[in-house]
């Protein structure tokens, strides 16, 4: 179903949404565009390439309490955390919506991660189609598109005098006001993106595990966690207890496979000790382990990692390097 909303219509609708639920939307913070719960509709930024961090943080927050431990007269009660509000993530790009769909793989598989599941079911996704491709974008190479409807509840496409509103799911439909006119016009042409060859990347990767490529790439890698934290599909986490004045909270926080203690066991054993092995783990998780488990490559082509990397390690380049290496191997 396609509707049309003028800018005023849209603002009105957002005002009413804000009365009923938390609205998470792109806002400007010190020069950065970030997804944050807003208090006023005017805070929302409509004109942006993509946000610094992906909206995954709404579903898997950088830090959250899993449960708390209450002690009373020798009795111990484990108090679960609850998701108390309905929400809408407004203005996310189709690639990021796909990122959330990919995170559903690990988090909704049995037994499902209840905090994630609750947030997911109580949050509607209102996407904003891209009318311009950024230099870092390669979503079409990764199974998505600037106007991809697949993973949002509603997709907005900006046109000259307002927005085309594509209603994708029942959840989206329930969110909309009555009275918006049907849109009968044509859809604008989405921006064209440069594609990278991704054919058979999974099998290419499998063959190159022991290639010296990884140690060479790791030469310039700083082993910071930027790529993992800006990525819409990186989801590794750490869990630890926080005791404070008799109360204990079990907390989880984002963690990255580039951290030195990531795979180090208490016994002192670490399957990945070199920098190359650690860097390889990140790409293998995306390009091999994730597809083997969840049938899709764990990258949506948002390009954040390559853009944010201080030394320009770019997954696009890695993918094409791997394919060249494979070709060179089969050629020789």
């Amino acid at each position, binding site marked *: 179903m396609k509707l049309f909303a003028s800018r005023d219509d849209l603002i009105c609708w957002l005002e009413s949404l804000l009365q009923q639920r938390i609205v998470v939307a792109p806002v400007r913070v010190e020069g950065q565009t970030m997804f944050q719960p807003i208090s006023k509709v005017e805070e929302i930024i409509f004109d942006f390439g993509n946000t610094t961090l992906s909206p995954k943080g709404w579903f898997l927050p950088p830090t959250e309490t899993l449960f708390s431990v209450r002690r009373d007269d020798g009795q111990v009660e484990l108090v679960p955390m609850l998701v108390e509000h309905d929400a809408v993530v407004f203005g996310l790009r189709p690639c990021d919506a796909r990122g959330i769909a990919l995170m559903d793989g690990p988090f909704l598989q049995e037994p499902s991660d209840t905090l994630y599941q609750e947030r997911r079911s109580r949050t509607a996704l209102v996407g904003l189609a891209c009318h311009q491709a950024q230099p870092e974008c390669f979503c079409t190479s990764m199974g998505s598109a600037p106007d991809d409807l697949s993973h949002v509840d509603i997709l907005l496409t900006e046109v000259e005098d307002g927005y085309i509103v594509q209603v994708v799911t029942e959840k989206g439909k329930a969110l909309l006001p009555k009275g918006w006119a049907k849109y009968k016009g044509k859809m604008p042409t989405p921006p064209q993106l440069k594609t990278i060859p991704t054919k058979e990347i999974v099998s290419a990767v499998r063959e190159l595990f022991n290639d010296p490529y990884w140690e060479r790439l790791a030469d310039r890698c700083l082993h910071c966690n930027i790529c993992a934290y800006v990525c819409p599909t990186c989801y590794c986490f750490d869990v630890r207890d926080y005791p404070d004045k008799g109360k204990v909270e079990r907390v989880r*926080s984002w963690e990255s496979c580039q*951290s030195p203690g990531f795979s180090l066991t208490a016994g002192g054993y670490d399957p990945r000790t070199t920098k190359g092995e650690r860097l390889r783990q990140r790409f293998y998780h995306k390009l091999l382990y994730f597809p083997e488990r969840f049938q899709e490559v764990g990258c949506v082509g948002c390009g954040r990692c390559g853009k944010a990397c201080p030394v320009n390690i770019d997954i696009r380049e890695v993918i094409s390097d791997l394919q060249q290496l494979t070709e060179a191997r089969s050629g020789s």
Partner: protein
Amino acid sequence: MGQGAKSEMDMELIQQIRDKARNLLQEGTVEGVIGYERAGDGLTSRPFFAYDSSAVERLVFDETCTHNLVKYLLNKKGKRMAVVVKPCDSRAINLLLNEKQVERDRVFIIGVSCPGVVETNWSHKGETLQARCRSCQLTKPLVYDVLLGRETSRKAEEETYSDIREAEAESVATRREFWQEQFSRCIRCYACRQVCPGCYCPVCFAERLEPLWVGIRIAPEENTLWQTVRTFHLAGRCIGCNECERVCPVDIPLSLLNRKLEKDVKRLFAFQAGLDPEEPPPFATFKKEEMLEFEK
């Protein structure tokens, strides 16, 4: 200077760097050369490791070469490496020599003259010089084995710390608010640490488990502890390459912390890091007779 003249000079310097690197590799003086190559955007640059003489053709040098390559020497201990070093980066060499992290005779320093570097982001090259370059007093590296390029004759501005002084004039509460807002954005990616040539503890205090000093919560109170202690570990050691601020994905103005400490270290101990490989940093030494502010 016209655009044409500028790129001509650049090409000459780049050729010199390539020739030197080829030479060093072919003669077996070093096992590898750490320099710069063009980044994937075709516009900016990124660190590059050349291990054979054919790879040296990828080496470049221009106003986008902001990275401090000295950091990488810490990963290549025991190996004979050559490294391309700008005047500012050479202070990091002095720091690491002073702290016995680098063996002078294993490192071949390809010093380059530098007209200053610009603000860059991926696929974006700024027009103006970085602030640190505008006040850079060095016309050539402080330490080198070979110096390539012409010594710069650019007139540097004086570092007046005007932004720091402005902050100092504010109330404590205003400053607290400012830094709380800044630190609340920190996502603890540790890029500031990973890029810093002065950060090389085998186990960082942020990762020590017993006792656990910094919790895993990515939240203001932990972020504040992390950023405060990290910058203070660099007091009298920070050489001002400002890489930490450049790499910060959420744009925390870390130079306001590092330069505050630099300013106070100058005032209290008359010391600036990385200028002299022999002179110990302020916390490695003391003067018996000195009277510091709280004693007066």
